[in-house]
Structures are given as C-alpha cells and as structure tokens.
C-alpha cells in the first residue's frame, strides 16, 4: 500500500553482483542526469525561478503599469497585509472552506468507498458514476451550481418548494452564514467522488484474511471497519487528506465563478484576495506577499506529507 501511494526508496533489490554495479555507476550517474535534465530544466524555469521571484517581489512596492518603478520596501507588504482586517477574515474563511470541505469529503468519501466495497446491487454502476463529477471541469461545475442556487429561478429552491420544505424562495447566496457552505457543497460534488474512488481502490487492495479473521472472532461490521480496515487505510487517507488540504487551501476557481467572494467577503479565500490585489487593485507586491504565505503553508504541508510517508520506511 505504501508503495502504491508514494515514491518508494529505490533499488532495495540489487539484481546484479556488486562489482558490476560499481563499474556502471559513473556512467549511470551521467545517464541519470541526462535523463533528468529536460524535466529539471522545465521545473527550474516554471516553478523554482518563479517562486524565488515571488519571494523577491514580496519585498517590493510593485504597482501594475508600464511606467511604474519598483522600489524595495522591506517588510512593508507583509506588515500591511498582517495589519489588514480583511486579511484575517480571509484566513478564517479559507480555513472554514478547507476544514469543512476536506473533513466532509473524507467522511463521506470513506462511507461511499465502504459502500461500494460491500458490493450492493449496482455497485459497478455507482463506481462508474463517481467518475463523472470528477471529470467535469471545475468551472463547469461552478457555473452549474451557481445556477442551481439562483434565488429566483434555481433548482434548489424549486426542489425544496415542491417537496414542501420551504414556503418561500430563499436567496441562498445572499445569506452570510450559508454562502460558504454552499460553495463547499458545490466543491464537494466535484471532489468528494474522487476521494471515494481513491479510498475504494485502496480498500480493494487490502487483504481479506484479516477481515475474515476478525469476523470469526465475532467482530460486527462496524467494528471490523473501525479496527481492521481503517488502520490499514491510514496511508491512503493521509495522502488524500494532505493533498486535498493543500488544494482546498488555495481554492480559487469555484469561488470566482459562484460568488466572487460575496456576500460581504463571506466566501473570500486567500487565493481570491491575492488575485484581487494583483490584478484588480494593481498591488503586485501585496499579491506576492500573500501568495508567498500560501506557499509557506503548502510547503509545510508537503513537509508533513513527506514525514508521514517516508519516516516509517527509513526505520525499516
């Protein structure tokens, strides 16, 4: 399982005599660099260099414009950012989005994965269906839900009204406490099926023997899930958790399309605030400071990720 969710340490299995390998080593190293070169060049150009530039940019006063000069202003951008109430609210909203969406995705994803794994009638169709929302582009997903939530003509109001659950049409996206949860729901339609698919394929690789042994011992279905499968699923869950957390923390598309941050910035996320500063307000220095902050968070997450996935193997 671990191998299937990560890079594994390589070549634990030397197939050739040590002497042969040694003689090949120098030649091999050259070939390795040669094979890696194109990818490293591209990654250096489109990732490493830009992230360094972003860091530098975050210390500059960098207004947009073709005749503007950039001046070094030290930590001013960071201080401005940290002193802005909107920034802190944005952090809060972003955390709301991240925690609720990732949490629900994992819980529901796990439940659906287990449901498929139990092979109810039509489980193949269910698994097949889960692929569809995942493959629908995020922007289409956002546009679709925006229309579903439409206060005056949307499907959500129509459905709830016909079911008798509401008496009047509700302006869902005007409700400050509701808007973010609705964005989360829309995001979940796209991402939760995929988490379910990951966990389901992880479940499928688990050995059945343990489960059967537990059944013999008289464990009920829930106990078997909790004590047998869940611990074995831990690596897959952690991968899904971390990757989804990183992605949720930097969410942009779906917010941009459904609410543009409203009402009253109740659905603003840090990526959207960065976008506003960089392109709408013409403050690229602040934009860089904000985006660098997102990087720090994601790099921390990456660090956690690596620790969790690689440490046990090192100790082997």
């Amino acid at each position, binding site marked *: 399982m671990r191998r299937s969710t990560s*890079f594994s340490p*390589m070549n634990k299995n030397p197939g050739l005599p040590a002497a042969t390998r040694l003689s090949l080593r120098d030649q091999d190293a050259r070939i390795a660099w040669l094979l890696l070169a194109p990818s490293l060049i591209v990654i250096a150009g489109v990732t490493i260099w830009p992230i360094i530039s972003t860091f530098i940019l975050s210390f500059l006063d960098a207004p947009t414009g073709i005749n503007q000069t950039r001046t070094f202003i030290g930590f001013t951008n960071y201080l401005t950012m940290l002193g802005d109430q909107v920034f802190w609210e944005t952090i809060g909203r972003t955390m709301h989005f991240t925690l609720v969406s990732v949490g629900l995705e994992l819980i529901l994803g796990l439940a659906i994965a287990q449901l498929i794994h139990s092979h109810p009638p039509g489980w193949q169709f269910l698994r097949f269906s889960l692929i*569809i*929302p995942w493959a629908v582009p995020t922007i289409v997903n956002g546009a679709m839900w925006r229309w579903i939530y439409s206060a005056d003509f949307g499907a959500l109001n129509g459905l709830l009204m016909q079911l008798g659950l509401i008496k009047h049409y509700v302006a869902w996206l005007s409700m400050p406490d509701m808007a973010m949860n609705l964005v989360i729901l829309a995001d979940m339609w796209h991402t939760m099926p995929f988490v379910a*698919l990951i966990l389901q394929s992880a479940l499928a690789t688990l050995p059945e023997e343990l489960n059967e042994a537990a059944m013999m011992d008289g464990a009920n279905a829930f106990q078997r899930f909790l004590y047998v499968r869940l611990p074995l699923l831990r690596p897959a869950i952690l991968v899904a958790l971390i990757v989804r957390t990183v992605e949720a923390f930097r969410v942009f598309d779906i917010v941009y399309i459904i609410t543009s941050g409203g009402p009253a910035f109740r659905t603003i996320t840090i990526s959207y605030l960065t976008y506003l500063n960089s392109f709408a307000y013409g403050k690229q220095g602040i934009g860089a400071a904000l985006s660098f902050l997102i990087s720090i968070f994601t790099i921390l997450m990456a660090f956690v*990720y690596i620790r969790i996935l690689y440490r046990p193997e090192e100790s082997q």
Partner: protein
Amino acid sequence: MPSRKLINKLFLFLLTIPVLLFIFLPLLWLFNASLSTQVELFSVPPHWFPQHPILQNYLDIFFPSQAASSVPRTYAVSLLNSIKVASAVTVICLVIGSFAAYALVRIPFGFNRRIQLGILGTRMIPEISLVLPLFIIASSLHLINKPIVLILTYMSFALPFAIWMMAAFFQTVPIELEDAARIDGCNRLGILFRVVIPISVPGLISTAMFVFLLAWDEFFYALIFTNTLAAKTVPVAIAEFVGRYAVNITGMMAGGILAAVPPVVLALIFQRYIVSGLTAGAVKG
C-alpha cells in the same frame, strides 16, 4: 440467515440512491437548461424537463449565426485551443517525465531521493504563488496570449505530477527483467524503451489521462495569460458566459455540457486505468 443477508443488501442498495441522486440531479438540471429557451428557463416553478426542448444553444456553438452572441460564436475556437494545449502538455509530460521518472527510480546516482522529494515539493506549490513572476517573464518574452505560454506554465503542476505517477508505475516493473536485458547488452535507454515502457503501457495511459484532465480543467493560468481567441481555452470561455449583462444561461449550460463531454468520455473509456492510477496514488483536485 439468507433473508438477513437480503435485507442487508437491500439496505445497502437503498444507501446508493442518495449518492446517485447527488451525482445526477445537478447534471440533469445542467442538461435541462442547455435544452431550454431563455423564457422557459425563467419559469417558476422550474420545468424539470423542458416542455419545448430546443437544440439552438448547441447549434449556435457549432453553426454560429450573426444573431448569436459572441461567446457561442467563439466557443468552438476555445474548444480547439483546449484540445491543442492539453494534448501538447500530455505529450511533453509523458516524454520528458518518463525519462526523469526512470532515472529517479532505477538509476542510483546519489541524488535520487533528494530530487524526488524536491519534485514532490514543487507539486505542492500553488499556481497563485507562481503566477506573477511567470506573468512578468511571459510578457517580457512576448508569450502572453499564445497557446505556448499555457503549455509551458501548465508544466508547473503537470510535470511533477506525471513524474510522480510514472515513478510509481516504473517501480512495479520487476528489476530482474532489466537485469536480463542488460546482460543481453541493452544500455539504459535500451532498457527504458524495450523493457520498462512496454511493460508500463497501462501506467502511461493512466498518466496521460490524468495529465490531460488536469490541463483541460485548468482555469487560473488561462484566465491570466490569455486575452483573445488566439489562446483562450474552454474554462475561460465558460466563465465568460457567466457574469454578463446580456445573460445567456442556456448557452452557458450548452457550453458546459460540451466542455464536460471530452473529459467525461475519456475518463469513462479509460475507467480501468483510472483505478490503476488511483492505486498508484494519483490525486487530481
């Protein structure tokens, strides 16, 4: 005992229904809107199935007339741009990514682990942190608003992802096969092309599909780096349907269906490979 099993099955089956409803009801609404007229779409309560279904919204896209608003008229061009960009990204990632992945998992040269972790790290860096410098570089190189800028910038997330995934697949190729080939006189490249790649074809297909979908889905770079039809991709075209005064929701929904068809069909055809990709740890957001 059998009856209890039956009840169990029935219970589980009932549980699948809300999941299926959650998946398909929004799609039904999307499809319904794409077949409706503007007036019918604005009816209260909503018509769950259009009483006068029309194909006009689709026809506007494929056979644009003068009367149609500009977005449907230009939508077909965006579709082509998307196909172009996503295909190029997929091919480049597969070619250079497979070299890198092979070197990382099968040629010990002292830095394997560090570079692997580095690549994993770059995969985590969000687009928004890279966009400003990329934008400045791209504009000084006169690349803004050209498909090549999207192909290059999409590498920032697609290439680490492809390397990561292919490394996991190459890892499963038995090393004995490589050794046998080496004894037969194959060099490293020979082993890669004659042994590893042929065995990993399912993995490569899986990687290709995931990368294609990633590139097809991408919105943020496309929003920033493209201005005109010369490079605009489908997600941007869809977004432009939204937020217009001359509202065209039916057209937007038709466009949405068309934008979703290629990735959905691709994913369903290669369903088997998705599962193998997932087992290899692919996670597309």
